[in-house]
């Protein structure tokens, strides 16, 4: 066990640091998460420097580096508070799927622009009736000569409103059991018949979308994997999702520690209250545990092992902790805690935002309950749920009100 850089790693880190210092001032796009133009420029700059998709082969525009190098660059980049969230889903989930399942021409057309940030990708799997049951997809694609015609509705599509392309999972055969009648395609999100509407979240924001398909016509050449073989392709895509979502991206133990040092408790600063201190210690233990668990995963990756479902623990722990930290800071304000105006609240309202956002994080990318099932079944080998839908044709499955 060695938590310090090796010589080679230290060299890589120094180079990355130098490169960031030299480049980030003039390409400070990422510091403004709401400015896509700047974010794209920064992504292009990283690609040119070999720091975009660090572990991908250089022939595809990547850095040809190791997982550890990718972590090192991420650590250094994070010090500059840049934000790469526009590209997370595309480069983390969609483009790898394209690389694995598309023909050479398609790959050559799309991978480079995605790595350089020229084009943004979106993933279209979830549906209103699906949710945790991802395969319960009703969006239909019907064959018409060399084309397919898609009708239906997707939901919880992150960033669809600013994305250029997407991969979409659709039902091509409703007469076989659920998992056996699905097919995956890539498509142009600007295609006729596609309507994108933002979802108003309870937290106030709108980072997700509903996407409606009305007679959207795409070519069979856009198919990824075999007809009715889309579930296997989807599993390939989803494998990377929970790893990406594992961090909460919100307030953490260090934030609430800093807050508590100056917040009024009943009897001095909140940080001197032993009840708060005991809880803070538990949060720290969780956060450090997750950080070191991610490091163990990286180690496994560098040894050529495939990270497994154990990475599901990240989101369960992080999302629940986020909700607890947010609410604890809110309640610490006593009556004042209800005030959410960023100008009047600690950390510009970050704790209040966390309180309102965390319920979504506990659901997005697999609910707490689904993730525990995954751990129980795939890690521990406990029996799967009894599946009443196993051998029935999709169209005969019972549905809710």
């Amino acid at each position, binding site marked *: 066990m060695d938590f310090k850089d090796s010589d080679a790693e230290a060299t890589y880190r120094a180079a990355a640091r130098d490169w960031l210092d030299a480049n980030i001032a003039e390409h400070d796009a990422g510091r403004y998460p709401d400015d896509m133009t700047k974010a794209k420029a920064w992504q292009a700059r990283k690609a040119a420097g070999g720091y975009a998709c660090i572990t991908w082969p250089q022939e595809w525009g990547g850095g040809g580096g190791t997982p550890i190098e990718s972590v090192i660059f991420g650590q250094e980049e994070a010090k500059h508070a840049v934000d790469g969230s526009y590209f997370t889903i595309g480069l983390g989930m969609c483009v790898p799927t394209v690389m694995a399942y598309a023909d050479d021409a398609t790959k050559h057309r799309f991978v480079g622009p995605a790595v350089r940030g020229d084009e943004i990708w979106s993933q279209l799997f979830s549906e209103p009736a699906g949710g945790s049951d991802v395969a319960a997809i009703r969006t239909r694609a019907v064959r018409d000569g060399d084309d397919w015609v898609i009708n239906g509705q997707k*939901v919880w599509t992150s960033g669809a409103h600013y994305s250029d392309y997407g991969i979409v999972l659709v039902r091509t055969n409703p007469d076989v059991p659920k998992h056996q009648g699905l097919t995956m395609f890539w498509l142009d999100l600007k295609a006729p018949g596609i309507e994108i509407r933002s979802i108003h979240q*309870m937290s106030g924001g709108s980072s997700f979308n509903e996407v409606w398909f009305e007679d959207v016509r795409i070519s069979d050449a856009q198919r990824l994997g075999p007809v009715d073989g889309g579930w296997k392709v989807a599993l390939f895509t989803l494998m990377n999702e929970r790893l990406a979502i594992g961090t909460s991206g919100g307030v953490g133990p260090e934030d609430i520690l800093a807050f508590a040092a100056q917040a009024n408790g*009943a009897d001095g600063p909140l940080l001197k209250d032993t009840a708060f201190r005991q809880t803070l210690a538990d949060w720290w233990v969780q956060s450090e545990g997750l950080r070191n668990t991610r490091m163990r995963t990286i180690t496994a990756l560098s040894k050529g092992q495939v990270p497994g479902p154990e990475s599901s623990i990240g989101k369960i722990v992080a999302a629940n902790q986020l*909700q607890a930290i947010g609410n604890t800071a*809110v309640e610490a*304000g006593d009556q*004042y805690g209800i005030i959410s105006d960023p100008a009047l609240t600690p950390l510009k309202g970050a704790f209040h935002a966390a*309180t*309102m956002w965390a319920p979504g994080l506990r659901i997005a990318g697999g609910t707490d309950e689904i993730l525990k099932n995954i751990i129980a079944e795939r890690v521990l080998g406990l029996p799967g749920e009894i599946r009443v839908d196993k051998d029935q044709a999709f169209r005969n499955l019972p549905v809710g009100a």
Partner: protein
Amino acid sequence: MNFDYSDDQKFLKDEARKFLTAHCGSDRVRAVLDDPAKAHDADLWKAVGAQGWLGAAIPEEFGGLGLGHIELCAIAEELGRACAPIPFASTVYFVAEALMLYGSDTQKVRWLPRIAAGDVNGAFATSEGAGPVTARSIRTTVSAGKLTGEKIPVTDGDVADLIVVLARDGLYLVEKGVGVTAEVLETLDPTRSAARLTFTDAPCEKLGSDDGIAAMQAVFDRAAVLLAFEQLGGADRCLEMAKGYALDRYAFGRQIGGYQAIKHKLADMYVKNELARSNAYYGAWALNVGAAELPLAAATARVAASDAYWFASKENIQTHGGMGFTWESDCHLYYRRSRQLALVAGSPAAWRERLVGQLEMRNAA
């Protein structure tokens, strides 16, 4: 001994539910939520006044119905269930209770009938910033009958006609108008309004003794029981919503309510809600008969209810999955309100501390 509502009280409660079902659907709550200019639902507020609910616990001699506090608890439970967007708590649980506890006959005669009639909105102004309200944290002073200070947040402060203000040397009555300015605040629960009130030589009148913190706490004890019923009503509604959704929603070909993770989550909600209900009942009794146990019973009721509502409102969202996270779902109305009610009379941590303090005093006695 009888640990339940009486038949008359149950009838009153049923009628209140019918009334609120008709007049306070979630569309009415959302109308306040979605319109920043709306402090509350004025029509509902008027209608609630017409029902006589504001004076349920106010004696007949002061224009109330003189029913008693258990009846008021029954109403509170239904208001909480409906997530009613009106300044009921401020006016009735805080200001009317403060007047009944500490008001002179003149003050009672002047204000209680108007409160009972729905002509006066009240607000209870104690906090002056982040953290618990203590003798040290109060900077508001009174000099020559004029009150000066800043209170933030004051629930319903922007729509209050009569404000009970905590100053260094006691509670004071201040009327809207000269020397009082209000700035509306953005809060986690926009269905209830809150303001920063600035008092500059505002004319005021003493209410009760010089020990303001003790008086505030006595009012909080009474309000805590009533708020516990609102919280209980909200928590019950969350459980109902979660149960309804769990029965309607299918995943993997089965109702999600058939999965043990959901079953046990809802059972946990039920357990917390029932403990909260039992503790609220005991608090209602203590409030109603003015029992010496009130401070402990109130703290017990409030801690139980705050815990139950927080759990029910957040796990209700979780049970609903993605749908529960949308603005369109009613789940967040209850999540927001659970925060508002948990903080409006001081935080759960502060009440736990008060509870243990009461246990210590009892054991020392």
